[in-house]
Structure formats: C-alpha cells, structure tokens
C-alpha cells in the first residue's frame, strides 16, 4: 500500500520537473524582467542596483544554471515578488489558498454527495419518472455555464429573495464567524457544484447500472442480504471505481473554474488573485499561479490513485 503510493509519487517527479522547465521557459519569455520581480520594492531601484542584482541573481549565467537557481528558489518557497504590490508571491498564495480550498471543498462535497446519491437512485429506479427527471436535470446542469448560473443565483437568492449575501468572504466590518462565512460560501459553491453534480450523477448512474448486472450482485442477493447492504457494500463500492477518476479529473477543472466564480462573488481566493494579476500584467504572480495549478493537478492525480487503492484491493496488491 505504502509502496504503491511511493511509486506513484516517484512517477510524478519527472512530470513535475517537466512542468517547471515549461514554466521557467515561459517566465523567461515573459514581458518584464525577472530581476525586477525578485527585487522587493523597498530596495531603491537604480541601473547600477539592477546590474548588481543581475550579477547576484546570476542572470548572466547560462540558461540551465539559471534554471537550477530558480528551482532552488522555488524549493525554498521563493516565487518572486509581485510587480504591483511588491508582496512575496508565495505569501500571497499562502494567504489566499485557504479561501479557494474552502470554496472547492464545499462545492466538491455538494456535488459528490448529490451526484452519487441521485445517480444511484436513477440507476436503481431505471426508466422511472425520477430517473427521467434526474436525466433532464443532468442535461441542464451540464449545459449551463457556471458563471451564468452564478449570476442567476446571485439575482434570485441574493438580490431578490435576500437569503444569501451577494458577495465576499464574510460580512464587511464584522468579526469572522463560521456561520456567516458558510452563508457567503454557499452560492459560489453551488454555482460551481451544479455542473459537477450533473457529471458525477451521469457517471454514477452508468456505473451502478453496469455493476448491477454483475454475477457477484446476484450472489449477494442469493445470500439473502438486506437491500441496503447489497447496494452500499456490494454495488456502490464497485461502482465508485470509475467515478473516482472523474472526480479526480474534476479537481483540476474545479480549481480553474473557481477563477471566474471567485471574481463574480468577490471571493478572496487564488482565482481572484490570478485575475488581478492578469489585468495588471503581474507576471511573477501569473507564473506562481501557473505553477500552483500544475501542482494541484498532480496532487489530484495522486489523490485519485490513493482513493483507487483504498477502494480496489487489486491495485493495492499489484
């Protein structure tokens, strides 16, 4: 089990190196100077200073040595400084990632719980009115873009019904309270969750239907087990295996998708930081974001592998 996980981790290392090389090449092609990015703004900037810093930073060195130094910096957590605010990029990321993870987490929980439940019900009641209802909901869910849904949700539930706040992380000027924060996260999380719910539901339905036809489900029935035990223990456990892949793929998609939703809802996460960086042509921040995104995708691959091996012993013992 541990060996399997370590092996998966090692397989990801070349990928990670590849990604950093691409990011590095992009960074050196970026407008703006990496030197300037590395100099914090309270250092007085003169031409001499820059020359000196260039020497210090080794920008006169050959490219591969520059890369190694750059990697060294990254490993130590130094991603450079924002052109705009002169803040350290890694500090910016660290301070903003919790909000994004919260949004992703809530939205993913909603879509996994709803998607798996509705998909399973749909499969168990195949061709019933509920199945058709969920199928229609699924098609709608897949075809509505989440930014549009976000705006509709704001309009209906925040502006008209006033059940939820329109935007922000907490009510401005108030102390942080979890209840208040959850009220704020609900609409953006829902906007992000709908598409995923629909996708997970469709995959779960198909997967459960396939598993139901398996011989071991008939064996479970022939043993006289309770219907709930048959569904939860024998059917779901197997049906989950293909669904896990889809959930894993959606982690990265969700991270990218949060950019627009965070902007619509003024959610102070990584996505909003990225949009601000793009509008301000703040390349160090953009690079930091790109690097982070790749890491998130790799991490979700690893998580997927881990979840796989928890559900399927054949992988664990491979």
């Amino acid at each position, binding site marked *: 089990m541990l060996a399997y996980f370590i092996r998966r981790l090692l397989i990801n290392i070349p990928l990670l190196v590849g990604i950093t090389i691409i990011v590095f090449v992009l960074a050196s092609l970026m407008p703006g100077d990496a030197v300037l990015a590395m100099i914090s703004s309270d250092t007085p900037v003169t031409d001499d200073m820059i020359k000196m810093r260039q020497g210090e930073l080794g920008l006169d060195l050959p490219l591969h040595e520059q890369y190694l130094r750059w990697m060294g910096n990254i490993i130590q957590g130094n991603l450079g400084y924002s052109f705009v605010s002169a803040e350290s990029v890694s500090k910016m990321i660290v301070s903003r990632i919790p909000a994004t993870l919260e949004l992703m987490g809530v939205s993913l929980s909603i879509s996994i719980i709803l998607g798996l439940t509705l998909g399973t019900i749909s499969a168990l009641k195949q*061709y019933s009115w509920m199945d058709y209802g969920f199928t229609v909901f699924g098609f709608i869910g897949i075809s509505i873009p989440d930014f549009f849904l976000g705006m509709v949700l704001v309009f209906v539930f925040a502006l008209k019904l006033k059940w939820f706040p329109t935007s922000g992380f907490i009510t401005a000027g108030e102390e942080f309270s979890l209840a208040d924060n959850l009220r704020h996260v609900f609409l953006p999380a829902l906007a992000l969750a709908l598409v995923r719910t629909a996708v997970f539901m469709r995959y779960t339905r198909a997967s459960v239907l396939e598993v139901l*036809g*398996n*011989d*071991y489900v*008939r*064996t*479970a*029935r*022939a*043993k*006289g*087990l*309770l219907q709930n*035990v048959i569904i939860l*223990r*024998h059917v779901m*456990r*197997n049906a989950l*295996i293909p669904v896990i892949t889809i959930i894993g793929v959606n982690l990265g998609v969700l991270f990218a998708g949060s950019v627009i939703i965070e902007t619509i809802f003024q959610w102070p996460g990584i996505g909003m930081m990225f949009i601000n960086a793009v509008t301000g042509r703040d390349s160090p921040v953009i690079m930091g974001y790109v690097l982070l995104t790749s890491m998130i995708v790799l991490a979700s691959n690893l998580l997927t592998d881990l979840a796989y091996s928890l*559900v*399927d*012993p*054949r992988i664990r*013992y491979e």
Partner: protein
Amino acid sequence: MTRLLEVKDLKVRFRSDRTIIHAVNGISYSLDEGGSLAVVGESGSGKSVGMLAIMGLIPNPPGWVESGQALFKGRDLLKASEGELRLIRGKEIAMVFQDPMTSLNPVLPIGLQLTEAIQTHLGLDKNQARERAIEMLRMVGLPNPAQRIKDFPFQFSGGQRQRVMIAMALTCTPSLLIADEPTTALDVTIQAQIVELVRDLQKQLGMAIIWISHNLGLVAGVVDTVLVMYSGFIVEQAPVDDLYEHPRHPYTLGLLHAVPKLDTENQERLASIDGMPPDLRKPIVGCPFAPRCPYRQEKCDQQTPPLFEVGPQHQSACWRWQELSKISTFGEPL
C-alpha cells in the same frame, strides 16, 4: 420421505426488443428432503432461469415469472414477498453459481463475504461469525483458512474460489443447495474434486441438492433423479439408472448415446445432435425437438406431446416413446 420442493407448471418470460422470450415453458418436478436431482440440457435450455425463478432472482426488467407454483416446505415461493424470500435465500435455499471468477465480489475480502450471510441469518456476533466462516472454509478443504480469510478473491485459484463459494452457500446449513454448473469453468481434474466435495458435504449435512449440468456423465454418480430440459420444457425425467438404460426420448438418447461417426481424420468421435435449438421468441407449436429429430412424424409438428408415464417414476414427452425401446443409439433407424 417428506416433500421439500414441488414446482408446478413454472413459466418464465423475458422481454427483448419488443419480442417475448419463452425461456421456461411450464416445468413441473419435485424433490424430497435430502434428495438429489440433476437438471441437464444444452446451454440456453432454461436450466438456470428455472432455478433463479424459485429463488425470486429473475432480473425484472427484463424477466418475470408468467405462472406456476413453487411450493417449498408447503409455501409458495412465487407468491412470497421480497422480505419473506430474503429470509429463505441463503438460509433455506443456497446457490452456487457457474463462474467462480465473477461470482465473488472482487473488492471485498472473502471473510466478509462469508460472515455477512452468517450474521444476517444466524444472529451471531462478529467473532462467532468469523469462527464459523473459518470452520466452513476448513470443511471445504481450503488450506490455512484462518489466514486466508483476509484475502481477496483475486488471490485464489478458480478451484479455490469455487470452494469458497461452496463454503459460503453452506454456512447456514440450507435444506436445499442449487449448484448451477459449479464445475463448468474449472479444469477437468478440479471438476471431479468439486463434485466429490459437494457429494460428501451433502451426505454430511443431509441437505437436498439440485445439480445443473450440461454434462450428464459428471453428475450421474451423485444424483437419484435426472431431469432433461430442452428449450424450456422438461422432455424426460427418470431415476438416473433407468434413464441411462432405458432412455425414452430421442433428445436424451442423443445426449447419452449418439451414433459414432467417422471423422475426416478417421477418428471415431461422438456425433452431437445436428441442428439448432428452436427460437424461443416464438411460442412453440408441436414437439420442440421435432425439427432436429430423426424420428419425427406429422403429429410431432402439430401437437405438443404431454409427459407420458413410461415406467415407474419415469416420464417422457415423446409421441413415439414406446417404439424407442427398440433402439439403443441416436440416429439408428426405428
């Protein structure tokens, strides 16, 4: 002997692309407590479906029981509710399926797959159920049961898995075991071992058993009665020795003693019966075997023969059963 199971006029249908498949077409048979019955017939003749029906395990859709009775200890299983059936399945009637590779859940340890039935039906706690599971695995001859109980199905060979399936079926000492071609997917040497094992266990536990097989030779030694099925009909039923010595249906004759034919390589081999079983999507008119039967007459095409009493506990659904006593091989002229 008390009657354990009495099936009367059982009919099972499936819907497929707007047509109805006539899978089982009014079969009747009975089995005493502790008795043993073999059901033989080509693949697709309705053997499995006939058994699944009495356990209430016909997948619906697409299938359903059209009519009939299945009296088990006097209760009609075909009228029992799902809740009542659940208490009978695994406890009173257990089933071992054809393919041990797919019949066990691949993601659960075999221990859990054994104990869940024990806990459901016998009300034992976790530890007692585990003890019982180990005892059962030892009984079916699985080495190291206490360790192996933690293993997953993919860690066992085909023969071992079938032993696990048998242990699983017998944990609650059912009064009826249905073994649906339990050896078909296994090597020949293992086949004999499994048949032997089930026979011993039957003697030990005193249960009744229904063997489904398309290989009469394999189970002939372990059953009292044989029931021959063809396209959803019972065409002949007799005590095993009587069936061997005095088959009274051409299809049985074909299964048992086909005329040896000379092959292209000049090797003697047993000819199989020429032709194909009838299309089950149409109701069958006349004798279902008529199109393949060398002894067919005009009457056979028009009227479905009933099961004639042709001897003590011996029935045959052939219009010409009396004349058949004159021949001993299939294809030999009458």
